[in-house]
């Protein structure tokens, strides 16, 4: 896949165009679809916990540099470019966290249908908490947002209002029961694309940097949720939801 991209870039060097990345996974919709099924679920954390992270995007997601690992009703994207060791180390510093790793692709099923598929993969990896996140990155030109996979012509000066904006969203899920600990969201934006507009690679680097900033901000927001779960004296209150049904 990466080889194919490089070849395309080489062949199209004279073309000087850039395809904006694909869209985000409908995380809120997926969460809502499961809401009724997990309403009776109960958090089952036995501290310390092991956390897995997985980035999902739209089913047809493509980008200049990212690699799609599994597909179905949504896709899993290799998060290496975003979930840098620095970000993983930051999560590892959260209270009562024993281990953090990116969800191993080998554990994913051939076709992804729901968040349960991701939970099962995380369970196989003996994780306790799964952080599912998606990034919605939109380029803007002339103050108008461009659709995913829009073609941008490079080489000329960009529109004075050209910008790239990323919104990262995450869902913290109990691997065993599917209980939702919370949802977090964060944004990042770069307005000056003049230097990056010269080549697709440069523009994509800007896109990736923007997404990384959004993800770092997202993890900061997610930590606030986590502190409410694992902070001193907080666990009992996180269990206040009334539940009586067997799983």
């Amino acid at each position, binding site marked *: 896949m990466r080889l194919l991209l490089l070849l395309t870039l080489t062949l199209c060097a004279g073309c000087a165009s850039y395809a904006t990345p694909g869209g985000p996974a409908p995380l809120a919709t997926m969460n809502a679809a499961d809401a009724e099924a997990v309403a009776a*679920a109960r958090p089952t954390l036995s501290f310390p916990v092991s956390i897995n992270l997985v980035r999902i995007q739209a089913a047809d997601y493509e980008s200049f540099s990212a690699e799609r690992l599994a597909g179905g009703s949504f896709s899993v994207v290799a998060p290496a470019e975003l979930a840098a060791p620095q970000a993983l180390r930051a999560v590892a510093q959260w209270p009562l966290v024993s281990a953090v790793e990116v969800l191993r692709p080998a554990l994913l099923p051939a076709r992804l249908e729901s968040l349960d598929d991701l939970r099962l993969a995380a369970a196989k990896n*003996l994780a306790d908490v799964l952080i599912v996140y998606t990034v919605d990155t939109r380029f803007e030109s002339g103050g108008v947002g461009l659709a995913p996979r829009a073609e941008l012509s490079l080489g000329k000066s960009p529109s004075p209002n050209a910008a790239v904006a990323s919104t990262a969203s995450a869902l913290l899920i109990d691997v065993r029961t599917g209980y939702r600990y919370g949802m977090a969201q964060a944004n990042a934006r770069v307005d000056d694309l003049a230097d990056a507009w010269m080549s697709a690679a440069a523009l994509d680097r800007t896109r990736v940097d923007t997404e990384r900033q959004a993800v770092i901000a997202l993890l900061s927001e997610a930590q606030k949720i986590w502190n409410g779960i694992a902070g001193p004296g907080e*666990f009992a209150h996180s269990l*206040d939801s009334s539940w009586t049904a067997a799983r």
Partner: protein
Amino acid sequence: MFLRLCALLCLAVLSAAARAGGPAPFDLAGPTLDMVVTRGKTILPASEVPNLAEGDRIWIKPEFPETQSAHYLMVAAFLSGPTNPPPEDWFVSCKTWTGRCAREGLTVTVPKGAKQALVFLAPETSGDFKGIVGAVRGRPGAFVRATQDLNQAQLDRSRLERYLATVHRFERGDPAVLREAAPLLARSLAIKVDEKCLDRIPQLQAACLTQNQDGLILSDGHSMSIAETLTSGPVADLVMAASVTPELGYGVYSPYIASVLDLVRIFDSFSTAQYQYIPALTSHRGDKLALTLNTPPSFHSPKSVLVVALPAIDAAQLPPLRAINPADIYCASRSELVLPVEGAPLAFSTRYAHDITLTLKNQDGKTVRLPALADAARGGYVVNTAGLKSAALGDTLSGFLEGYWGFDLYRGPGFQLKNARSVAWTLASDDEDALIVGRPDTIHLQADSASCVDRIMLRDAAGKELQAQWKMLRPGEVEVTLPLQDAAPGAMTVLVAQSGMSEPHAIPIRVFASAARLDSFVLHAGDAQGLLKGSRLDQVASLSVGGVSFTPGELSTQGSNDALTMLSADAQAAAALSASRQVPAQVVLGDGRTMNVNAVIEAARPRVGLIGKSITRPESHTAGGIELGHPDQLPQDARLVFSVRAQVPAAFARDQAIEVAAADESFSTLLGIGNGGVRLENARVALVTLDPAKAFGFSAFGPLKFRARVRDVAGDWQPLATLVRLPQLTELQCPENPERACKLSGVDLFLIDSVSGNAAFEKAVQVSDGFPGASLPVPHPDAGRLYIKLRDDPSVINPVQLEVQTLPPAADDHAQAAAPPAESPPAAAGDSPQTP
């Protein structure tokens, strides 16, 4: 017939096993299995799944070392009981070394009708899968039994492993803690603990406690019901019988031993030319399943097939956990609250019971759940109550353990809890005046709940705090042993620190000097004084009985026993007290304490009145010339006869006696009817005869007293006479010159206190103490008579009628001052005869 055959077969197996020293232990590490079970929306690791159900999706992936060279075929198989060969599609194989299985593992769904599940790990060879299918379908009953035994052994072994791990953890830490934890471990895990091991030195306790490991596991009905093993029948009976052999643990029936022996028998019967089946026990390593073997695998024919039992496919057998003492009340504010439970060892040795919480309702009816972790060494579930700090909870709470047993909701025993609050502690009334310094003393503190007590301290008047030992007697009462060994009497404070309370509760107490001990108070009717007996009676300030007050009189002490005379200021009121055996009396001590003692008012003491007396001296002893100066003087060689009249009782009893004694009671004699000392004139009058020399010997002297006595009860003393010893005076020689001294000769002159020549006892000569001589200088008698005072009664002047022999004048009469040729008095300083 079948049973007999089975019994014979087992006996043979057992005998062989016993001869061989028992089955080989499971101590060879095998591969690890990753296993996850999905039921509905819930996904659990195998470590939290005690039973499977139809429709469960099981994902299994073995973990081999990266250097693993042998290829293993993994086969998942389901069985539907001993009499029904499973269909071929209930067998699913997976090549663990290549392809999708190597990457993703194996996922199978529990088919409808399945009862048991097995996993085989077989070395790669041609026909491996078919061989396994054929073996299982050919002898389904044997594999069913093998599954049950493997499960039983796994569950039992989990208890043993948890026990051993905990014992060794304590061994590495503080071995002394083991002594406290071992009984709790035994109770929680149903493990046999040899209590003698705890008597050894700490360093040897762990080694002792872990001897004969397989035999330590006691029967657990819950495990058996989960594993579906047989708990009765000839096999179990034979195993029990065999287990009393030295080889199998000396009489401890261990289901683990039974399972392992049964496994040996079953797996031996599986062997073929191609494969031999060897059992693999699973134990939980985190969320993974670690396999342990008792037979080294073989990669030559017959190759070893590892047989792993998965949990039984059956309804959940919820753990029969029960509270150790349901009536106990626990402190909800304790940061680490331990709720003691028993009855389900697997709750402590496995993760089957998971996500357990202590569920409480707050005042708003809102549910609050606190995480609870099973801790075998502490004998129950340990609850972290940190989450309660800001919860609005009432003073009294009802909670229960709740969570999951595998996939199933589980509700455990209930508990009563008290929230920390400032409670009104009171000192038990019996303890209020009972605290004595100089020794550890015990008090009882009472409140509506004592469950939150963390520690109790004793603070003295100087502010020094000492740790007090305490224990809870009842939910609302603690017994405290206060360290008063070095305390000073006075006010002190007991500080009760409770979980959840920032300040300890202070209880003022007062400690006293060693308490008076009151044994008895005896008063005779008619008396104005009684005798209080006990110890430390010096603290007594007053005594009150029948409305009459008594104050302390003379105190006498003999060892630790005191006798205190109690005197009544109102003799008339005291005398009015009538005889009684049970009269309550109150004693007030000097520090204000009051104590009770039982007073006994005895019958009136005997009393007699002296009618008259006469003294008769033998004729031979009157020649000394000494005339007694007072009628009460009783010469020692005389005989005293006195008469008495009975007053109380009104007539003499046969056992009544007259006691005669010296003033200091240094010598005494008892004169009664029996010894002839008392002769009755009639029932009320008696004559008493006393022969002093005979009764008391030569050294008795001084005032005598007498009293009536009836057995142990004596009347008041009355004066009787003054016993005097008389010297024998033989000669008095005087010079003509009246200015010169005379010489008095005789025997026992030391009995004379002083000598004078006139009745007014002027110019008397004092005789030195211990004068041993036979003559002494005395003043010239004025009217031909000397006067002496006896040493035994120096208050009386006694005339001496003795002929004066006139001495002829000496040649040096003028030169002599006054000294006749008498013996010198004793040479002791200051003891020389004095002449005024």
